[in-house]
């Protein structure tokens, strides 16, 4: 039986944790709002609709340790590596999830993906990511320490970026997602 989307996410987190790399990552995007349920522990809070996109923000430099090849780590789950666009941005594709990695944009910015050799991936540099990676909370999820953006910063980030979105449907969702967290 095919795993549910949530089971897939938990399995990814578990594998990252076992390899000691979960601590480098901040889970951002709509999947962060799912895990805010643990943080808020409030019955009136409900997460945004889960999408197929799951994004992890990473610092541009991660601590030196034994390399972990993320595509190889997730290979037997059926994730395949896809390259998008003229710049070859990498995503890990699965019918249930699309995994993407983001790093803070540096300097004047570049559209080229940022290679993280220690993890065998390339990541998309995006502006305002520092907001999310420098203001985090840590929750205990099934014995794993998971970093999420602080909810207030998450919501503020949505309000900042929604006008900059290229796609209308994402731009429409951002304020709604922010208000759910603020409330």
């Amino acid at each position, binding site marked *: 039986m*095919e795993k549910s989307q949530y089971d897939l996410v938990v399995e990814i987190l578990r594998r990252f944790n076992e390899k000691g790399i979960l601590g480098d990552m901040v889970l951002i995007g709509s999947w962060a709002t799912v895990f805010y349920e643990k943080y808020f522990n409030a019955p009136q809070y409900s997460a945004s609709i889960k999408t*197929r996109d799951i994004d992890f923000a990473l610092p541009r430099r991660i601590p030196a340790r034994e390399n972990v090849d993320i595509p190889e780590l997730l*290979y*037997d789950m*059926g994730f*395949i590596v*896809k390259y998008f666009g003229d710049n070859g941005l990498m995503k890990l*594709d*699965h*019918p249930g999830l*699309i995994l993407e990695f983001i790093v803070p944009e540096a300097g004047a910015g570049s559209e080229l993906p940022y290679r993280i050799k220690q993890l065998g991936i390339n990541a998309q540099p995006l502006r305002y990511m520092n907001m999310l990676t420098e203001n985090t909370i840590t929750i205990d999820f099934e014995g794993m320490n998971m970093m999420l953006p602080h909810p207030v910063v998450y919501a503020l980030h949505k309000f900042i970026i929604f006008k900059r979105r290229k*796609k*209308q*449907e994402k731009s*429409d969702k951002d304020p709604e997602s922010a208000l759910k967290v603020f409330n």
Partner: protein
Amino acid sequence: MGVIKGVLKEELQNSLGMKAGYEKALRELPKGSLSILKRNGKGYYYLKYREKGRVINKYIGIPQAGMVEKYRTAVKMRKKYRHLLSVVKKQIRFLRGTLRGKESI
């Protein structure tokens, strides 16, 4: 085109890309599986595969280091990819059906 149809169209493109990806991944897996035939207490390795509709059992002697694991993984991943490919094909059928609707949503 409305916002929802725009999202669905993008999803369809993603799914078509994924279909191509899984079909490529399947082509790149080594063909066949290893089987061991025991005779007189000794094991003889055969590579079993299909060619032009026929099942071929090819004797390969003592397998090279890592070969047994490579084929074991290939069998597992072939099953996985075929299943995921069928999931993606269902997604494509659903999305194409929905996009054929005349409503501008």
